[in-house]
């Protein structure tokens, strides 16, 4: 049972609508009209806001692009592949190591958390970069012989000049005898990073899945962990827990992931998915094509971990069910100790969230476990089904925002005066200048893991550290 608070004193549908209206006052008419459907008080049942629409030009949006979704989220975290940012130098440089998807292995030997680019110059724009790509793939293969494959992630110019990376990849793949996956994820495609996730999933479908099988015999407990990107080591917290309940995690998509294991995922018995937004596409493909069922879960905070573990156990036999109960019984006291330590310091504190794929809804209960209440939530790049899942998690009439602009968030924070804002790097310093405690909830603010039982104590500590830091008391000077 969820323990989230369902009503908040002082917040009504009217008060929230009034706050929204005020935030929109400053916009020109046309922009206002575009923004209105994306902001609403939570009705508790539906996707009350419109989403996955074009960003209004000229507003400070937090959104990225399709390339960011493909490189930073889906492909980038696969550790045993070379990921080529195909195009000018910038995109690869900016996305280099900034998402904190940690990896095992030796850098440059069997792990490639590096920045590979074709560094397009003017002549590549004029004459095309296909020839360069072909040479580059050969060089990458020679310099990194243990790389299991290469992904080619196209930046804006590649699509605009009409380079055919697909045929180069196909030919080179044959010549070098390794998988080379072309991914047409140019940044101008779609409205946000979300299309990049989708396109990448399609490339996994077309080029990878079903091309390998696990060497060891199948068991009824073979599962895949989908949509965990190992931010700050999240996977290293989740995988052992799943193994503790008796499941075999055969593949991880894609945090610290391995290409061949991903390629053999069609042989597992169940896919469990954390980041629904970025990878539901592939779960559906595997369900349709290979009959693999899938299940959403949430490993933030003991309440949701407990719920999720039991839901996972439901898909298996008594052995797993017993293991789950044993594991819950083992960790509950440990989690209670965390709650006992931090809850008195955080009780009743208000949180506002604005993040990416799953956290605006997944973390709501983790805060509730600490006695905190989320008074506003929203996504940079969600779709309707995400908001449908968010609405029941959020207290009634609290504000929900889609692709919020910095101005809107500023207005909401000014009105609601939360004790903590959880959002991204672009928002962080703005709110800290206002004296509002902040945690980066894309990157765990250089901390982590936050997932599963190992993550919750760290999450609790970090939230407390932000909210109760004595430094905030110094903000107002005595003179």
């Amino acid at each position: 049972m969820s323990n989230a608070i369902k009503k908040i004193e002082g917040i009504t549908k009217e008060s929230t609508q009034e706050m929204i209206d005020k935030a929109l006052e400053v916009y020109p008419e046309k922009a206002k009209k575009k923004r209105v459907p994306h902001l609403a008080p939570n009705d508790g049942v539906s996707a009350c806001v419109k989403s996955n629409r074009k960003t209004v030009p000229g507003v400070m949006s937090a959104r990225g692009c399709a390339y960011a979704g493909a490189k930073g989220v889906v492909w980038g975290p696969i550790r045993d592949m070379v990921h080529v940012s195909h195009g000018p130098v910038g995109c690869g440089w900016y996305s280099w190591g900034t998402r904190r998807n940690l990896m095992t292995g030796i850098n440059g030997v069997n792990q490639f958390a590096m920045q590979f680019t074709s560094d397009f110059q003017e002549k590549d724009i004029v004459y095309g970069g296909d020839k360069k790509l072909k040479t580059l793939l050969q060089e990458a293969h020679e310099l990194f012989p243990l790389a299991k494959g290469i992904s080619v992630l196209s930046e804006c110019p590649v699509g605009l000049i009409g380079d055919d990376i697909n045929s180069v990849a196909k030919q080179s793949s044959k010549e070098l005898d390794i998988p080379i996956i072309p991914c047409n994820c140019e940044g101008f495609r779609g409205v946000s990073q979300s299309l990049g996730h989708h396109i990448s999933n399609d490339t996994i479908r077309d080029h990878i899945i079903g091309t390998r099988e696990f060497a060891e015999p199948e068991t009824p407990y073979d599962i895949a962990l989908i949509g965990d990107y190992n931010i700050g080591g999240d996977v290293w917290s989740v995988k052992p827990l799943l193994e503790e309940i008796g499941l075999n995690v055969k593949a991880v998509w894609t945090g610290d992931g391995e290409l061949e294991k991903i390629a053999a995922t069609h042989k597992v018995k169940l896919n469990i998915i954390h980041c629904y937004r970025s990878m539901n596409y592939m779960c559906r493909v595997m369900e349709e094509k290979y009959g693999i069922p899938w299940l959403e879960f949430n490993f933030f905070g003991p309440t949701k971990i407990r719920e999720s573990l039991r839901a996972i156990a439901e898909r298996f036999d008594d052995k797993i069910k017993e293991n789950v109960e044993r594991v819950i019984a083992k960790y509950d006291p440990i989690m209670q100790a965390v709650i006992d330590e931090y809850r008195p310091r955080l009780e009743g504190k208000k949180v506002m969230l604005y993040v990416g794929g799953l956290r605006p809804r997944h973390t709501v209960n983790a805060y509730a476990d600490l006695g905190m209440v989320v008074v506003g939530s929203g996504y940079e790049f969600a779709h309707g089904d995400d908001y449908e899942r968010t609405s029941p998690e959020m207290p009634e009439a609290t504000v929900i925002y889609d692709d919020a602009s910095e101005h809107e968030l500023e207005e909401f924070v000014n009105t609601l005066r939360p004790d903590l804002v959880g959002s991204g790097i672009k928002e962080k310093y703005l709110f800290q200048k206002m004296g509002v405690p902040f945690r980066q909830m894309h990157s765990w603010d250089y901390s982590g893991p936050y997932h599963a039982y190992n993550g919750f104590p760290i999450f609790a500590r970090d939230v407390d550290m932000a909210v109760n830091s004595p430094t905030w008391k110094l903000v107002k000077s005595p003179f």
Partner: protein
Amino acid sequence: MTAEAAVKYVTEIPEEEVKRVAEWINTEEYKEKNFARQALVINPPHACQPLGAELAAHGFEGTLPFVHGSQGCASYYRSTLNRHFREPAPAVSDSMTEDGAVFGGQNNLHEALENAYTIYKPKMMAIFTSCMPEIIGDDLTAFIKNARNKECVPQDFPLPYANTPSFNGSHIHGYDAMLLSILQTLTEGKQVEGRCTGKLNLIPGFDANTGNYREYKRILKEFGIPYTMLADISETFDSPLDGTYRTYPGGTKLDDAADSINGKATLTLGPYATAKTFTWIKDNFSGKHVSMPTPFGVEKTDALLLKLSELFGKPVPESLKAERGRAVDAITDAHQYIHGKKFALYGDPDYLMGYVSFLLEVGAKPYHILCSKGTKKVEKELQALLDSSQDGKDGKIYINKDLWHMRSLLMTDPVDAIIGDTHGKFAARDANIPLFRFGFPNFDRVNLHRYPLIGYQGVINMMTTICNKFIEIRDETCEERHFEMMR
């Protein structure tokens, strides 16, 4: 072949194979292969033009950087500046998508100008391009003219723009292009015959160290020289935390920037990042024009002070003379910990010149010198610097190489330390040597951008950081019987 035989299984790479390759990548043979690369670039330490353009734009009062292109680009530039300075970096994009690719970006530009002008109330919007409009050939001159006619912004609202294609040059060239356009826009029609502001225009170039800007100002104040610092990011990216968010906390006053054309003298420091701007200034600004290297180290600082003295007919103040003495004292006291140490260096040309100069004057050896985006001119100037000292004779220059090349150099021909930015940490770790983060960006250490590297104070800061690190290493690694009170 049977169907069964065709199944490909998941295979693990054998331990010994991993070990073999791990050793191989440290060899001469690998280095040769690595240096033979023609197309692949690995770990380049430079960004693309628009990032520099945004930095320049942030240096002006009430200025909103405006990215004409895909929204993801703007997001990346902002994040990078946020991470380096740990400060807000407000900027907008006109969010061009597929239809922009087909029909051009004029509609996006117009809508965005109107929205941004209304919502964020800037005094100027500095427009620069990312890849997409550069490739489809958007005509910004026409678009902007049309925007004014459509009243997206008032007729006289300043809208400097710069073409900053990402497939050309690096962040320093974008900085130059944007700065040039801003100055051209603001100074247009502002030249007054016979007027002299009596002020010095100081242009620091692409410099992401807010402490440097403050240090320049302090030096000028000591001199009593009135000045206008152009593209002054010191307040923008080092604003006080007092409970109020200000969208535009700093920057050069637009009036001052406009009047800079009537200055007594203009001094650019960081010639590679201001080449075009300086050329234009020479032809258009009143007064004297001087371009000098970034003042890293005692000699280059001396040269700056002498130049200021000459330009304004004022003697170098006693306070700065004393400061020079203190800096020389500081490096003489510490030189034994750095003398003869070999360094690998990489970064932007202006910074590289400074590192080499500083190292040579304290008795260290600049050894592997790598510029990932350089020219023959950069190479020649670096070589001349090396040739100026006995300690420079072994130094080797690598132009247009990346940090994977650097790694090969470190493994096959080791040095004692690296000077660079955060991105060098992987190579430094593999080589087991310290990395001094004097460049941009610095994501993984706090507050460094507040410590000036220029001027005599910069000399003390660099020397202190480097020497204490070497002392620390000695303390941490020496045998117990050599663990001493005194170092």
